[in-house]
């Protein structure tokens, strides 16, 4: 249980730092990739303090949910198919299906909130998809290695 919490927290933190760094690099290369519509409009996403706040919120959430996912991973370990990293990958993909794909489908089809759904599932467009995939892959690999 303890190792699950620790592994999950580390997985969440490391993955988050990786994804924030990759998004930052991509923003430097491709310019503003603003996909998040805030109540104040797109303009507020040009404010570095908002980006910083977003990064902190993302990091906190990833550590928090990483710990909970870590506990679940430790609890269900023997029932998850595969070995080592692959086992972690299956677990990570299951979380993705339940958390992102399921929630995204309800958001899109029953609330017509298509953009947040797409962001939730793919993080919109190639750049965010790549960043998202690297986040998930890194996270599950980290969980898998523990």
């Amino acid at each position, binding site marked *: 249980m303890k190792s699950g919490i620790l592994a999950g927290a580390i997985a969440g933190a490391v993955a988050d730092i990786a994804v924030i760094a990759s998004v930052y690099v991509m923003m430097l290369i491709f310019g503003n990739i603003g996909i998040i519509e805030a109540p104040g409009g797109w303009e507020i996403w040009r404010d570095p303090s908002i980006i910083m706040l977003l990064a902190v919120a993302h990091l906190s*959430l990833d550590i928090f949910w990483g710990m909970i996912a870590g506990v679940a991973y430790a609890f269900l370990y023997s029932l998850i198919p595969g070995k080592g990293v692959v086992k972690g990958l299956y677990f990570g993909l*299951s979380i993705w299906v339940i958390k992102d794909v399921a*929630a995204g489908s309800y958001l899109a089809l029953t*609330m017509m909130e298509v953009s947040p759904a797409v962001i939730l599932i793919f993080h919109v467009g190639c750049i965010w998809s790549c960043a998202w995939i690297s986040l998930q892959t890194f996270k599950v690999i980290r969980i898998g290695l523990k």
Partner: protein
Amino acid sequence: MKNILVVGPIAGVVLGIVSAISSYIFGPYFRILEAPGGWEIWDLSLIRLFALAAISLGVIWGTIMGAIYARFYDRVPGKGILKGLYFGLLIWLIKDIMAGSYLALTMLEIPSAIILIINGFFMWSAYGLMLGYLYKPTK
């Protein structure tokens, strides 16, 4: 496994009906159903379409979650209906609370997150109770 492929979709229909009803009740309250055409487009035919979408999603996700329930049956705490309820609440935690927290805190989609969590509670509780009542594992 065969059993769950029948039970999952049945519980999924209940999930869809509860989803449609709870969205109908809570949706306007939180004013989240903002369609591209504005609030006026939410006429009866669109509400029917929306209910149909909710039930279809219920059947799809009910079947998938049912298969997960059957796979992890022994690890879910409780017995009978309570076991199903615990599983339903676990799905609610991952699907709605976890996704809702990301929606609210990293995308500022707060009303959508609130409705996802409130609707989800009723949906997955009903689904879990139904699943726990109907599903009998094969020995």
